């Protein structure tokens, strides 16, 4: 038995540490720890500030899923104040959200995840000619021909298609060779390049993937130009409570949005569809297929047992979310929990999440038995608490081995993370694109999705097409490490089409004469109630996100975020068991204990975003009113 530590886990957002016990003989991980190791306290900083500014502050939780927290924030404020944003504002926000998802997924796959699958060193032995042939074969075999409703076609032909010539691949190979021979490996330094997993793929796949790594490094920036046009910049574009700041006018040369500006967005939408369909999906399916063929269907963990999502893309806006109308107006109605999907789609159990559920103490609670917090009162840490009775009192206990400022091993029997443990009916859930897909697929197959939208239909078609390519049933390939990564690619294709869908809707609406982007009639605090509470929901690239706000006398008296990575990366609970990261690690075989490539690969298949997930407490460890970045921790509305 060997104790293995990986800290820092890189190619993620923020600071994450994992530890595991590996049985060297069988390669089995018998115990594992996932620990968020940094805390910044943004919600505390939001206390007493103006709710109209909050989006800017809370957006800085994360620069990778930039815009996600700003969007959830403005939705929460608008829910609290009963603001119904104009149609254009909703369409523009949806375009921005979808373009974020496309760009985020592509960056995740190529730049944060790919180097766990492919190696530039292995690419050196590839034959450029064979690589060109492989590229053509991949494009022939692994394209998924799905698209959204046919809108106006603005592109003559697909421009950014992969190059499949020997000289191109030779050029890339020479560059990699020069880097390796110079001894300055730069970004390729210090990886376990000699790990046997890199031998699973032929050298030509490595070379093709490295070429695409470099291509996408330069191309990804063009995918988020909608943020630059509508929000002025990226990362961290601008929003405004009540809609969007980018006024539309076809009569003024100096207006933020006119036809020329929309054409930039149109170009980005076309590019997104091309890059997903020509690069991302074929690459992923080609690699995934080889992995599945070689029997690599592990790393599923909690996904087989329980997944959760909140649903995505309001078709039209409503002025309230907390009464559940948000859920009734979605393009993708994935709000709910699916259990036991691993046993087969028909045996899986779907439970819907409603507006009332979110406020129900019996549905949601959180535990701190293994987080660096303590609960006071007669039950102590033993009893998980609903956020309304929630408390956040720090109790940093340091590691099991080492000193508080020099960790060797964290204490799996005690507290070991700044993340709390969110629970649904006292159970753990996994969130993310995989959850999203499992839920929609289960609902569709069990007949729970009447009048399917085009997007829901497309999701089901995507899953069935991939099942055909891989030759496996969805319940076999979906809840695995490969499936988690594949679901993200499918989500990317879907979001590119969603971008197009809402772009067409935006154009249609402007055509009808409506140019309003912001509703400012409730801007003045004198129009607000003395006290208001609100919730903003958004299915972020990493899963269901919600923000909760309490506004009193025109100021924020309580703010808290329910973040996807907290659901996935949380520490264990003595009754509910392990969280998604820990279970996925324990569902993964490690070939060489000293080089746990499989572990970092399965962790990265979640696309960790630690800055989003870490908890909040005050430095004296006293109870504070504005609490937690974790689910439900600060939902209590007493100030």
């Amino acid at each position, binding site marked *: 038995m060997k104790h293995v530590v990986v*800290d*820092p886990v*890189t*190619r*993620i*957002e923020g600071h994450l*540490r994992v530890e595991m016990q590996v049985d060297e003989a069988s390669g089995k991980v018998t115990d594992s720890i996932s620990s968020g*190791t*940094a*805390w*910044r*306290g943004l919600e*505390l*900083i939001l206390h007493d500030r*103006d709710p*109209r500014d909050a989006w*800017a*502050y809370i957006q800085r939780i994360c*620069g*990778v899923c*930039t815009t996600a927290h700003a969007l959830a924030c403005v939705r929460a404020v608008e829910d609290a104040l009963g603001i119904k944003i104009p149609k254009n504002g909703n369409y523009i926000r949806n375009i921005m959200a979808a373009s974020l998802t496309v760009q985020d997924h592509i960056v995740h796959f190529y*730049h944060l995840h790919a180097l766990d699958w492919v190696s530039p060193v292995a690419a050196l032995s590839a034959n450029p000619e064979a690589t060109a042939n492989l590229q053509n074969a991949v494009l022939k075999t692994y394209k998924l021909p799905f698209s959204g409703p046919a809108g106006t076609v603005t592109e003559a032909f697909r421009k950014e298609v992969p190059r499949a010539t020997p000289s191109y691949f030779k050029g890339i190979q020479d*560059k990699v060779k020069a880097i390796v021979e*110079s*001894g*300055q*490996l*730069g*970004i390729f*330094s*210090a990886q376990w390049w000699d790990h046997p997993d890199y031998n699973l793929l032929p050298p030509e796949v490595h070379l093709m993937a490295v070429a695409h790594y*470099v291509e996408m*490094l*330069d191309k*990804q*920036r063009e995918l988020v130009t909608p943020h*630059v*046009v509508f929000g*002025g*910049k990226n990362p*961290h*574009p601008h929003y405004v409570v*009540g809609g969007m*700041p980018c*006024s539309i006018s076809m009569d003024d*040369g*100096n207006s933020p949005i006119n036809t020329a500006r929309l054409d*930039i967005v149109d170009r980005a939408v076309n590019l997104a569809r091309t890059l997903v369909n020509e690069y991302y999906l074929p690459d992923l399916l080609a690699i995934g297929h080889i992995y599945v063929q070689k029997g690599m269907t592990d790393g599923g963990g909690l996904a087989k047992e329980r997944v959760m999502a909140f649903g995505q893309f309001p078709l039209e806006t409503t002025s309230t979310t907390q009464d559940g109308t948000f859920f009734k107006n979605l393009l993708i109605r994935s709000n709910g929990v699916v259990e036991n999907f691993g046993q087969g789609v028909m045996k899986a159990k779907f439970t819907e999440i409603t507006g009332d559920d979110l406020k129900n103490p019996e549905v949601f609670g959180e535990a701190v038995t293994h987080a660096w917090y303590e609960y006071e009162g007669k039950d102590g840490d033993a009893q998980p608490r609903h956020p309304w009775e929630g408390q956040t009192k720090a109790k*940093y206990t340091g590691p099991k081995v080492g000193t508080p*400022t*020099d960790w*060797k091993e964290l204490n799996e029997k005690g507290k070991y993370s700044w993340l709390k443990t969110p629970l649904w009916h006292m159970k753990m859930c996994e969130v993310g694109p995989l959850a999203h897909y499992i839920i929609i697929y289960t609902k569709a197959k069990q007949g729970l999705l009447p009048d399917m939208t085009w997007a829901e239909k497309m999701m089901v078609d995507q899953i069935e097409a991939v099942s055909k390519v891989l030759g496996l049933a969805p319940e076999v390939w979906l809840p695995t490490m490969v499936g988690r990564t594949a679901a993200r690619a499918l989500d990317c294709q879907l979001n590119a089409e969603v971008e197009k869908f809402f772009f067409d809707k935006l154009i249609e609406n402007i055509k009808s004469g409506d140019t309003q*982007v*912001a509703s*400012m009639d409730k*801007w003045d605090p004198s129009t607000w109630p003395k006290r208001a509470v609100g919730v903003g929901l958004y299915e972020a690239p990493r899963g269901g996100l919600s923000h909760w706000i309490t506004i009193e006398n025109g100021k924020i008296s309580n703010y808290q975020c329910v973040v996807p990575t907290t659901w996935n990366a949380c520490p264990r609970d003595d009754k509910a068991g392990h969280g998604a990261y820990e279970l996925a690690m324990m569902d993964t075989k490690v070939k060489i204990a000293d080089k746990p490539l499989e572990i*970092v690969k399965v962790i990265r298949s979640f696309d960790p975003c630690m*800055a989003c997930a870490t908890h*909040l407490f005050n*430095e004296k460890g006293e109870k504070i009113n504005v609490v937690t970045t974790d689910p439900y921790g600060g939902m209590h509305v007493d100030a």
Partner: protein
Amino acid sequence: MEKRETMLESYLRRGLSRRTFIKGCVALTTMMGLSTDMVSKVVEAAEKKPLPVVIWLHGHECTGCDESFIRSGAPLASDLVLTNIALEYDHLLSAGSGEPFEHHLEETVKKYWGQYILAVEGAVSTTDNGTFCMSGGKPFVETLQRVAKGAAAIIAYGTCATDGGIQGAKPNPTGSAGIKHYTGTKPIINVPGCPPIPEVMTGVVMHVALFGKIPPLDSEGRPKQFYGNRIHDTCYRRPFFDAGMFADSYDDEGAKKGWCLYKLGCRGPETYNSCGNLRWYQGMSYPIQSGAACIGCSNAHFWDEGPMFARLPEYGPLGDIDKIGAGLAVATAAGVAVHAAASVVQKQQRDKDKENGKEQVGNK
């Protein structure tokens, strides 16, 4: 693997002549403060010198600066990290992780001691011995101090690294601050912004790669070429300000016509950045062009200078200072009136006393 590409080889490989290389060495000599007769020695040394090594550390941050860095349009991110610099340690892009990666950091620091550029993203947290920001099992502040000692120069990327940023906003629960307090006397290039403009971030590195020295800095350590002007002074909407043509609220007539956002609290008049001239995405836009008021994200303490949608801070029920000032003026005037009335009474009393011969002045 042990063979290191020399600076000369690197120049030649990039199609640059030996002449250019010698020029670079002359610049390098000046930068190092050596006299010109040392050039030959520098050439000799540089022929054995590899690509500029960059170590990128992450403190309390959101990775938005990394993301901005790879959004650069020129140089493109691939050209930068594969050809112009050797990015040996970076939590976002580096392949390695865990113990081998930390070991690689130590090796790089040792191997290139006194030569590497340290780029830092994120603030330093020091409360509770820095245990709010742990990486590699150690507080970030310790790693920063250790690595900073061997750096040739330090780049502070983003307002978090320059001044503490969002986590340093009141009440600053983690005791976060800019890195300058923890890096001793090393030269620091401050590149503030939340995040900074992509081409500004890469431009600073390219300046070092191309000119062999750090760019000229202003009194606050910012590159003059990128932070030399206020956004207001370079804004394409400035003529509307001068003409008194303003948007009074979001999405009103003025906003649609693209008039000045001054009345919506735009921080352009106080903010030094390249948004007005370089703009984002190589001239595509910047917040003001997209109709959103600037929030002054390259200002040291902009998070505590709210509300962002108002020109001046607001207090209590009266609101901004002009209302409070007018209130105080009225109160003063009222006080004056009362005092005047009392003074008249006093004077009459005094005059009466005088007439009665009970003259008395002051203390006499």
